[in-house]
């Protein structure tokens, strides 16, 4: 009995010792790394966007860690799936901040998720860095101390860019709008109307369509009869393809200038031979090899890390990767400037960034308390599909 007890005692002691050693090593490890979080769609219809953001962040983190990390520590990425669902995203963000103690959270594709996260981030004083969702109100959230930053398109600025582009290239005088019937469409309705009203331009009409619409000929016919000379389109891949097919049936050859919805999935397969008619905005495209050394270097790093990437068509659309890549580097610079990863100081760190030569552009004073969006109207490129690949429009 006593021998049994002593064995048990020894075992317990050993276990306690082992636990202590493990705990010590874990805490030592925790102290050695700075955790950054990602809350994005890693499953469901938008899973590819989460994958692109992960790839962009990972390549940037590898570069930063190879150069000695930030503040002498390595960066570690912790990911959580929001399933494109705001309440899931909120739970994930709280867990990352309170349990994993991440210094910053990167956001994903879905505007509604980002909109749910931002008030909590402002309250908990942890910076939020948007890498994809374009909803204007994400960064323009009205908070006194705004912790939401973004390296991505902004609906309101995109809408202004769509007008500038179509007026320049198609001499637009009376545009018609085809907008998806959801909050994203509404966000752009406000932006487009603002841009149109500032020019005192008449409109041919504003039509909504559903993502399940098979035939949008009736909507388009209304716009055509009202004399639309350009179409502004906001919608995801599948509904945008239905617009192109309906135009095709009507035999109406009108310029289509679009938000970045078509830039994903199989737009050229779904929209058919006229897919190339749609000109949409992008924040970044990988240029042909040799034209952009920085782009070539990042693409090579991507290929090294993810062998399934063979050509530029395998990283379509490139915006998620490029936005996330630049966003991670800007976060690292903010940490260096702040000298700490404490939220309030880190937020000031963002404003202190002077210049960063990024993948999308060279950023100079990218963030100010008045403007927490690093990309502006001149940072968009217009692209279209040619043989299944996204290429810049040559105009």
């Amino acid at each position, binding site marked *: 009995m006593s021998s049994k007890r002593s064995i048990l005692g020894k075992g317990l002691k050993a276990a306690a010792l082992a636990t202590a050693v493990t705990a010590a090593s874990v805490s030592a490890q925790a102290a050695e790394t700075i955790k950054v979080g990602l809350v994005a769609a890693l499953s469901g219809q938008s899973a590819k966007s989460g994958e692109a953001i992960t790839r962009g962040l990972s390549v940037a983190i590898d570069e930063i860690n190879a150069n000695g990390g930030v503040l002498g520590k390595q960066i570690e990425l912790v990911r959580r799936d929001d399933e494109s669902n705001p309440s899931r995203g909120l739970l994930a963000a709280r867990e990352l901040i309170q349990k994993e103690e991440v210094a910053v959270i990167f956001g994903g594709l879905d505007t509604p998720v980002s909109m749910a996260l931002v008030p909590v981030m402002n309250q908990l004083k942890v910076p939020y860095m948007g890498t994809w969702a374009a909803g204007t109100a994400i960064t323009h959230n009205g908070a006194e101390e705004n912790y939401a930053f973004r390296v991505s398109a902004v609906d309101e600025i995109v809408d202004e860019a769509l007008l500038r582009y179509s007026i320049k290239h198609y001499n637009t005088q009376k545009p018609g709008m085809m907008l998806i019937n959801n909050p994203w469409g509404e966000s752009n309705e406000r932006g487009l109307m603002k841009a149109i009203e500032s020019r005192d331009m008449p409109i041919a009409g504003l*039509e909504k369509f559903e993502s399940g619409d098979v*035939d949008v000929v*009736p909507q388009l016919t209304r716009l055509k009869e009202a004399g639309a000379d350009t179409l502004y389109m906001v919608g995801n891949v599948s509904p945008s*393809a239905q617009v192109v097919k309906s135009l095709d049936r009507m035999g109406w050859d009108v310029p289509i200038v679009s938000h970045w919805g078509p830039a994903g999935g*199989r737009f050229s*397969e779904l929209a*058919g031979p006229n897919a190339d008619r749609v000109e949409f905005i992008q924040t970044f495209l990988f240029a042909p090899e040799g034209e952009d050394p920085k782009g070539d270097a990042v693409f090579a790093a991507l290929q090294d890390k993810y062998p399934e990437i063979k050509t530029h068509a395998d990283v379509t659309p490139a915006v998620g990767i490029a936005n996330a890549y630049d966003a991670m580097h800007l976060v690292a610079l903010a940490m260096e400037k702040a000298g700490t990863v404490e939220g309030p100081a880190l937020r000031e760190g963002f404003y202190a960034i002077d210049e960063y030569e990024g993948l999308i552009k060279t950023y100079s004073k990218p963030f100010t308390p008045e403007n927490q969006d690093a990309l502006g109207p001149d940072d968009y490129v217009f692209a279209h599909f040619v043989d299944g690949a996204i290429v810049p429009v040559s105009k």
Partner: protein
Amino acid sequence: MISASIISGLGLGSMYALLALGFHVTFIVSRTVNFAQGSAMMLGAVFGFTLYQTWGLPLWLAVPIALMLAAIYGLAIERFLVRPFASRGSDGWLMATVAGGILVDNLVLFTFGKEPRQFPSDWASSTVELFGSGVYIQQLLIPAMGLLLAAALMLVNRYTRLGKVLQATVQNPDAASLMGIRVPRVISIAFAVSTVLAAIAGLLIAPLFSVSSDMGTLFGLKAFAVAILGGIASAPGVLVAGLLFGVIEALVTAQLGSAFTQIITFSLVIVALALRPDGLFGKRRLLKV
């Protein structure tokens, strides 16, 4: 503009009618409906796409196999989601078929993939001129097929032995059973017919639309509205209601704008049912006390 809307509307309307006929067929023989009709439509398109595009089978082989699989789906729904509840006099089949449809949609999401795909068809790539507006041949094929199938269904009902069996089951299941008609089998067949009709709708619409796991959801919902509107017990009623619903939908969109489409079409459904509670063409059922 009006002719273009009417053609669009007739095409969509026949889709609703095909799905709604499926509701009708099961309702008349068993007083139950399959709320997974939308998923049966989606399965028709997904099976067709997989067999034809992914596996490279010729179309004449891919289509019958897809329809056969859809029929098996209908049999399974009846056997596992309807019969266990209906035989006990429970209305549980209602929720069970809804749940079954959601389950299948999600299974397809995981197996077929998240991205919508395009079903290639020569009939949906070149347009023909009709009353001054361009239409795909596929768009004309849909109402033609819809009318043909509805007519076939009515002829079978009226002139064949199967039709007589169906009629007998509809009129008095107990008496039919005593006359040697295997009522459960008739009900099974009705469910298979209903999912095959939905699958045909799915195969017809796929080239105009895209193939994806959620393509049937909204269609299934609208088709049920159409079935109720037409008077679910009347096949011609369901057919006319489907075409009417599609045409009104397209005309409202074209004349008043898309913001009004759902508001006006569904308001009309409510008004129509308030005026004629048994549907536009339904007969009031006499309750024997």
